[in-house]
């Protein structure tokens, strides 16, 4: 009984609180000028497009939304711009340029002009190296890739879409079961 009343008081209390919206930079346009408002990173439009397409290659639209649908490219820019120090941001830019050069060498055109298949093949190659501790070639390129991937994944797994549709995150669980059978977990 107590429990119900308490919840009601609590919900009434909660209604007093104002919600707050996510603060993300507004959408990109594709006129050639950089469109995201960044404080530290200096990106030109091509670099911006590359990173955007890279996030989409990492998490493409399939039957479920992709990076661009979820605005993850904007999240990646924001995180690298706000939460990384100058040294890592410099590595990010250097690695980004290395990435573009490597794409051009292999495919004769920029990443954003490559076919989805070529992009995927190229990124898969890096993905393999990026997990290989002994792989020393072009460390900046790999570091750049890791930063983009890490923030894409972080943004994705903490996105509203993922946390409501793919898993269920509860702000208010209202329970602590100290002994919970693993069997029951599998049943959900």
């Amino acid at each position, binding site marked *: 009984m*107590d*429990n119900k*009343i*308490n*919840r009601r*008081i*609590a919900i009434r*209390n*909660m209604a*007093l*609180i*104002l*919600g*707050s*919206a*996510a*603060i*993300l930079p507004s959408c990109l346009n594709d006129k050639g000028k950089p469109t995201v408002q960044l404080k530290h990173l200096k990106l030109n439009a091509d670099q911006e497009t590359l990173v955007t397409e890279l996030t989409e*290659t*990492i*998490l*493409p639209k*399939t039957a*479920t939304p992709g990076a661009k649908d979820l605005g993850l490219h904007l*999240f990646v820019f*924001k*995180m690298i711009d*706000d*939460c*990384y*120090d100058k040294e890592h941001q410099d590595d990010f830019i250097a690695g980004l340029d290395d990435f573009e050069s490597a794409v051009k060498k292999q495919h004769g055109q920029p990443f954003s002009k490559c076919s989805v298949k070529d992009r*995927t093949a190229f990124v*898969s190659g890096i*993905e393999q190296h990026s*997990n290989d501790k002994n792989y020393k070639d072009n460390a900046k390129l790999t570091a750049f890739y890791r930063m983009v*991937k890490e923030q894409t*994944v*972080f*943004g*994705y*797994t*903490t996105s*509203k879409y993922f*946390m409501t549709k*793919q*898993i269920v*995150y509860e*702000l*208010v*669980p*209202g*329970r*602590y*079961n*100290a*002994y*919970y*059978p*693993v069997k029951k*977990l599998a049943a959900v």
Partner: protein
Amino acid sequence: MANLNIDSVKDRTFDAIVIGSGMSGGWAAKEFTDKGLKTLVLERGRDVKHIKDYPTTNLYPWEFPHHGVLPDDVQKANPIVNRCYAFGEDAAHFFVKDAEHPYVQEKPFDWIRGYQTGGKSLLWARQTQRWSDFDFEGPARDGFAVDWPIRYKDIAPWYSYVEKFAGISGNRDGIPELPDGEFLPAFPLNAVETYFSNHVKKTYKNRHVISARCAHLSKPNQIHLDQGRAQCQERTLCQRGCPFGGYFSANSSTIPWALKSGHCTLRPHSVVESIIYDEKKGKAAGVRVIDANTKEAIEYYADVIFVNAAALNSNLILLNSTSNRFPNGLGNDSGTLGKYVAFHNYSAHINAEYDGAKEWTTDGRNPAGGGYIPRFRNVYKQETDFLRGYACGFSAYRWQQNSSEGIGQTLKDNLVKKDLSGWHVGSHMMGETIPKETNYVTLDKSLKDPWGIPQLRISVDYDDNDEKMKKDYVEQMTEMFTSAGFTNIQASTDHRAPGLDIHEMGGVRMGNDPKTSMLDKWHRLHACKNVYVTDGASMTSTSCQNPSLTYMAFTARAVDHAVSEMKKGNV
């Protein structure tokens, strides 16, 4: 204070003044106003009202600009407070930023502070254990510090008194070195925590692993509902401020209670600069405040003054309260003011894995955080080459692990795949440190803070005793983990600066002898009987229990004494 007319003085005169509105000051405010005294609560920071001023409390992870991560410039600008585990995007607004409130580190000291209504009570981890006579008798027995002027029996009723109002969950464990209290139901231990608890009970004499006791309303009583608080909903987002009032904070409990009485005036943005000593009357007349916004100096007067600015700030205020009678700080006839500062030592951890109990996991979240191992070293007799002992946290957990391997659909599939990890167990030490004269705070001779008040110089360090104790923690826990069949045991120690435990204490210690202590057994300055100090500054020694519950009990007891003295006309 020129040109102030009589009415203005009257407006600025109260029965009681409380300096600080945090964990302990909130209790002083509640107790004074319950007893009908006209009370002024002075708070240097801004006002934070329960629920209304918890801007992040209901945000989902994706609603934070950086999904919880603090921007690099904020981290870089705040190297000290950034070391605190709770300083994240969700609670940063309740912590003091390094640059705003400067102090001098004669030796490295991480001074973690919350300057607002509620102080650090908004941010705390809510662990609450009583002290026992093993703690109060420690100095007399072991020969460090001075004898406490009180014993467990003096404070036990006051523990009960504050526990009932605050709401403490726990089990009655019947352990002499960790007395039972007035408990709401405990948050239970999980499968591996219970396994370890049973193992330790079987294997060791006088060692216990119990459910952590904590200031959460696991099942509220009427008195908690009367405060407008509700049952804890196991969110474990407490450091944001809890919209349910599920955990005890001054903001959800004591301060609104005091305000409701109609006897309380809460004045935020009021930095107390010093206490005014009236030489003719031989007692304190009031306090001098700098308005944080206008920088204007204002005086307030009262019959009795409670100093609850948190340990080191209470030292600062007394050190800065000089007069002909007290050239070295208010009440400082002993010369001990600012000295014998001590803290807790949290600098060792241990982690391991456990292969059993595979059929169990947990569901929901445990606000208590898991288990607690009360001090077991040197309790009944001195058995090691170091003084005193340590308590330990203990918890076991499993998680849904996913992999971020691959790209494209493979990655998407990997991220939703939820393999349950095996059990992991972890512990950290909570060691007692020995108060020493060489661990002190003082006022800087030239550096001032933005309000023109001298900056505090902190000179506090570890010693050999801490090193030996730390080594013993690692050895004992490694042995206990090994015998329990835990594997992949990884112990680690770090070299954090003192202070990061956020349990700094002392400097205005209690004692029977005015020659070697500042406060009598009622927390009253030996030499200025209408000034009481009841926060961590008053602690003669530190024990290894989390301290806040004891500050609360001390405060309630001291107010009771102050009011009875006032009634007798002694103040």
